[in-house]
């Protein structure tokens, strides 16, 4: 095995892990960009999405239907949370919102445990991506290739929506100046709910996609939430490009860290974050906070 093949294989691992982080962080960053809140409950939406996906697969026998249905269900939960819990807190500032969304993590975690139990659950990848494929002397699960492609496709689609559509223009307007957007006749309340629900749906998409790789269990969202927060710190809160860049950087850093410096892999992750913060305190693509 040559060094080059080794680097290539690990880079592919890092790319796949990074794409999973992207699916999760993009919703977080979108919600922050629009609503200005750091939604810690995003991890809970990830868990809910995974379990909703398992339930949908059990009911429909189709991974693809689950990938459609689970995000819709979680979006509804997200909309409800935004309307009932978050709306009254917008005027109260960040600490109240962080505390509330932090509390929601535990609420949803216990709910999941209560409904589905503490046992680890898994589902096989969809039939089309059940095998592993040969890449040189190595084998790579084809489902993981799908995750890479899916993540890239979603990034492109989101970019098109945000940069090239009217809806995207409204969202961007809300991000830059919500008050002005309201003055121009945008129903900011409704857009806020829609964006929050959409962000929750993205977390659920990540949850469904993650289950065939890492299985589902209560608390899975909390475990990955820390990584997601690091991604948005690196990439810059509120930026789509930043979310993608941060995810790929963290995915590669963690993968190569684990493979080559296993004793210090956690240090590598936080080291990268600290470095970015030193050079660019707002993250790679971050804007000044309002």
């Amino acid at each position, binding site marked *: 095995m040559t060094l080059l093949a080794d680097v290539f294989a*690990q880079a592919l691992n890092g790319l796949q892990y990074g794409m999973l982080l992207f699916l999760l962080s993009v919703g977080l960053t979108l919600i922050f960009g629009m609503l200005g809140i750091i939604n810690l409950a995003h991890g809970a939406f990830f868990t809910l999405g995974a379990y909703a996906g398992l339930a949908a697969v059990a009911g429909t026998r189709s991974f693809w239907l689950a990938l459609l249905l689970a995000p819709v269900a979680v979006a509804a939960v997200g909309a409800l949370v935004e309307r009932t819990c978050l709306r009254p807190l917008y005027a109260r500032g960040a600490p109240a919102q962080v505390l509330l969304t932090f509390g929601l993590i535990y609420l949803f975690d216990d709910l999941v445990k209560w409904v589905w139990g503490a046992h680890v659950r*898994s589902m*096989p990848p969809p039939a089309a991506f059940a095998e592993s494929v040969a890449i040189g*002397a*190595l084998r790579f699960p084809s489902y993981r290739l799908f995750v890479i492609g899916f993540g890239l496709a979603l990034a492109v689609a989101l970019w098109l929506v945000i940069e090239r559509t009217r809806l995207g223009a409204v969202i961007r307007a809300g991000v830059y100046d919500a008050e002005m957007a309201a003055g121009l006749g945008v129903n900011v309340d409704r857009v806020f709910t829609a964006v929050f629900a959409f962000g929750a749906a993205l977390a659920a998409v990540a949850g469904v996609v993650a289950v065939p*790789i890492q299985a589902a269990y209560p608390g899975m969202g909390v475990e990955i939430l820390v990584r997601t927060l690091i991604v948005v710190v690196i990439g810059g809160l509120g930026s789509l490009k930043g979310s993608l860049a941060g995810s790929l950087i963290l995915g590669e850093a963690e993968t190569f860290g684990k*493979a080559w410096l296993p004793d210090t892999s956690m240090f590598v992750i936080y080291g990268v974050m600290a470095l970015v913060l030193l050079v660019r305190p707002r993250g790679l693509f971050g804007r000044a906070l309002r």
Partner: protein
Amino acid sequence: MDGLTRRRFLAGAGAVAVSAAAGVRRAPAQARPLEIGLVLPYSNVYAVLGESITEGMQLVFDREGWTVAGRKIELIKEDDEVNPQVGLRKTKKLIESDHVDFLVGPVSSGVLAAIRDTVHQARQILLVANAGNDEISRERCSRYIFRTSFSNWQPNWPMGSWVAAHVGREAYLIAPKYSAGFDMMKAFKETFTAAGGRIVGEDYTPFPVNEDFAPFLTKIRQAGPRVVYAFYSGSQAVRFVKQYDEFGLKAASRLCGAGFLTETDVLPAQGKSALGIITGHFYSTLLDNPTNKRFVREFREKFKKTPDGFAVQGHDTAQAILFALRATGGDTQDKDRVIAALRRAEFDSPRGRFRFDPRTQNVIQPFIYVREVREVGGELANAVIDRIADVRDPGTGCTLPG
């Protein structure tokens, strides 16, 4: 808080003295229930293990109608979150404010290492129902600590020579980066290399959070060993076994390990990826003895699932407590008496005849079973293919009166 304990102790002792003087025979500590404090994980990576242990205990106490020697049995459950700091806080709470008669737990070796000194200094009787740190049977043993589960050394030490003889002599080791992972791999290496085996690679992976084993599986694939010897438990066991299969490693390297890797709690989620994995453990659900058959039948009726080794640990912990209480006639105030009774504890367990090793107060494993995951009656199970009798921890450095 120590004062409270002493006051309560003196009051109890006084009452006993008075009734003895009056020549009245009364059940000791009459009204006070027997309080058992559980410091176990009910969340995070080992949540299912905590649940299984608790269920194993509940099953045994159910049979007794939740009373022993005239005392009502009460469980006080605390979640240690697999976090040493949290475990220590919960342990102090159970000792200092609840004044429990017995402490039971924890699951993680890291938590046990953190609470050991507090337990020892408080002279609190602790029955370790899972955590296997070797040190607790060795240089950090304590007369107040008994272990009903295993030492990390026990399931792995016999596997080293067995794997070298029956599977292959080139092994890659992989385990989570904390004391249990280190202990288990060390015990395996000891006998594996002595039997002519060679270690071609060794990785310790992040713990408790690690979603993805891909970087390590890629390294293993490149090393191409005959054997991969692993220790994982709980959700990490599911992920490791599934990803090992997905990366196509099953065809190249035989996966072996400590029994937790394929215990009944994780087998259904692992599915066919687990087929053929060989592990060493003190128990298999398929063991053919009357105690186990009854245990499996009742457990399935009560909890609608198949019991695992962790549930057996809970079962045996509860049995040991019952044994001690019967021997002292319900008295738990005289700690020396309770300890002496526990040291003599002996009963039929689903794993075989249960006894503590007096040198370490760690359980003597009647057998370590070599098991292979097979499909048995339409369900995945650990079929016993070999066994090694009477496995007791060497107890090096422990100075309990043997």
